[in-house]
């Protein structure tokens, strides 16, 4: 992989750069150009084939689409939100896109490279049901502490409802997300301790045939 992404990602480098920026008042030209052109090139096809469960052709198609929208090879949060919002013209999908971004950005460096992208998709589309449930749990667990609290779930729910926008039938009420969260917790929280752990989550989902079926809905997306 290029030196560049590693440079971009190192926090020490970032701190040094910001200090330099503070002292001199601006980024020096080559720093600017490097910072702007922080391109990333993904690993080779063979390595990606080993790491993910996609075939060679699928990886090719995925990369072509990825590179088309992000020529620099990495997606930052703004790009991500903008791309995702194109699919939901009626509502505001930025919050949910942020949560998605955090779920894809596994090393939390603020950008999603093609490897992150493809790794996430591999779990969602080609992983076992448990893997997918794990991934969904990871999405809901905003602070990644291993359990979903009602507040976290409420945030997620509100972001999903935001995507519907204003013009819905029946009209969206303020309490709708909260009620949905309550019903969710009623279903998932076995020991009624106010949080849903990963085991409770997987167990409850496995009992629900709707969820089981819908988890496999997008298998043939690629």
């Amino acid at each position, binding site marked *: 992989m290029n030196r560049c992404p590693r440079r971009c990602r190192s926090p020490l480098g970032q701190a040094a750069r910001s200090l330099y920026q503070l002292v001199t008042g601006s980024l020096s030209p080559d720093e600017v150009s490097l910072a702007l052109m922080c391109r990333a090139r993904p690993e080779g096809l063979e390595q990606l084939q080993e790491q993910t469960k996609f075939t060679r052709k699928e990886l090719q198609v995925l990369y072509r689409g990825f590179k088309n929208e992000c020529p620099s090879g990495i997606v930052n949060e703004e790009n991500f939100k903008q791309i995702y919002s194109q699919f939901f013209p009626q509502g505001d999908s930025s919050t949910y896109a942020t949560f998605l971004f955090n779920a894809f950005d596994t090393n939390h460096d603020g950008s999603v490279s093609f490897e992150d992208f493809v790794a996430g998709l591999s779990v969602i589309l080609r992983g076992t049901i448990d893997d997918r449930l794990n991934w969904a749990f990871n999405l809901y667990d905003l602070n990644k502490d291993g359990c979903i609290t009602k507040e976290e779930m409420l945030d997620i729910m509100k972001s999903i409802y935001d995507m519907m926008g204003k013009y819905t039938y029946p009209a969206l009420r303020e309490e*709708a997300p909260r009620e949905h969260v309550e019903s969710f917790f009623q279903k998932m929280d076995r020991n009624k301790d106010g949080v849903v752990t990963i085991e409770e989550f997987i167990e409850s989902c496995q009992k629900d045939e709707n969820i089981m079926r819908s988890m496999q809905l997008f298998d043939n997306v690629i």
Partner: protein
Amino acid sequence: MAAGVAAWLPFARAAAIGWMPVANCPMPLAPADKNKRQDELIVLNVSGRRFQTWRTTLERYPDTLLGSTEKEFFFNEDTKEYFFDRDPEVFRCVLNFYRTGKLHYPRYECISAYDDELAFYGILPEIIGDCCYEEYKDRKRENAERLMDDNDSENNQESVPSLSFRQTMWRAFENPHTSTLALVFYYVTGFFIAVSVITNVVETVPCGTVPGSKELPCGERYSVAFFCLDTACVMIFTVEYLLRLFAAPSRYRFVRSVMSIIDVVAIMPYYIGLVMTNNEDVSGAFVTLRVFRVFRIFKFSRHSQGLRILGYTLKSCASELGFLLFSLTMAIIIFATVMFYAEKGSSASKFTSIPASFWYTIVTMTTLGYGDMVPKTIAGKIFGSICSLSGVLVIALPVPVIVSNFSRIYHQNQRADKRRAQKKARLARIRVAKTGSSNAYLHSKRNGLLTEALELMGTPEEEHMGKSTSLIESQHHHLLHCLEKTTNHEFIDEQMFEQNCMESSMQNYPSTRSPSLSSHPGLTTTCCSRRSKKTTHLPNSNLPATRLRSMQELSTIHIQGSEQPSLTTSRSSLNLKADDGLRPNCKTSQITTAIISIPTPPALTPEGESRPPPASPGPNTNIPSIASNVVKVSAL
């Protein structure tokens, strides 16, 4: 949805997995990818230049030539490529459109050639990207004007058939070269305007003396002659004005136009003078009215293009002139104050007050220097010289700027208006595209429901009422459908939303109609309607006899106007009774789907059944009238 992000649709669909554990209802089935074949390169040979691209790239726009099966007509079996005998330069832009989703207009291309190529490939020019849209529109407008000029000059040579008398008159007025009569009229009016202006001027010239009294102006000496001339001119002008008023295509607009106001103002003094002839009190006011006769000179602007342009540029330059005036006023006030206080000490000073000093300041700053007011004190002279020096600067500097502003502002105004009009159009296009994509989903929903209804009905005709959607579109709609299922709410468009809000606010009293709802067996929530199929006849249905087509009725969604909590609770009990398998969440979920007003074929509209006959038992008759204009549409 831009084509560029079509490549990310699989990602968006995969990300929908985040909704699955949260949703309480089953998700709709995904559209099947019927002809999923491996992506292949296809070769497009355009007049010898070979372009290659993926098949899926071209299929992003299925209603163009390259995206549909129309290109098969151009397939060359021998060379296994698609051959087009067209311009390869423009084809480059067309192919880039498929790749990037943005259509560009190359500046060196001729606009009509470009339009021809776009028409050939089935691409609407309206989707040209914003970067090139202005240029395209400008060129198009120039071309259109050129065509119009050509047409006009052609038309002027032939006799235009069958214009009404009124229209011919208007054309004659506006364009004097159309006929000899118009030309004669044009010159006659011009002559009389000149005569009128000259008489006004000559009227005031002292014209010899009557012995024994002072010099008289000619107007009073030959008053009869001048009066006759005036009358003749005013009569001509009045006739002309009335004729123009009669011939104008839009009388209201004509009356409001500047030229007609000038006409009116030019002839009013005469008539006012006729009316109040010998009243001595108002004769003073009457005299000042005569000054308005000078407005007749403005009537020349109909005869002179230059005057019109001058007037227009002055109007457009008004802000500049206003600024000049404002800065001048500031300087005048400053200097007048200073001079007044400087000259206050001297005796017999003409600078009696600050407004009196205004005159001195203006005369000095414009370097006129009449000399009727001069400062006498030393301080006054010093400040007076400063005043004249600064006058040179203040006046001389903005004037060239204004002069150069004339052409700049003139052209700039033209361009700014163009840009503003295009900006509105551009924003409108963006809005239309946005609503288009959401409307596309609503539209396809209706069509999907409708086709399902038709399938249920078993009617072979009218299979596909909606236009065919590409696979990508159907996948996108499936994604939006999943979101609806997750949240148990439906997407509707703005008008329906307003209507719903109005209705729900109108029906705020507890409804006695809730029992009436029981008469509609199909009243289930959308997501659970599949389950409702199990229950063929709800025990609380009051209209079993009329439900002949039970299959259809089961999947019928009735449309309600209101959604009060009282209704849901009352109905929820009915639902639970009837449908044990229903998930508890559906109890709180809302009633039916959007109000969809498609003109369904009569077979589908059991409109009569929505109003159960009065004889049937139960309070079924008080169905809200709002629901009467509502159409039943089959659900999934």
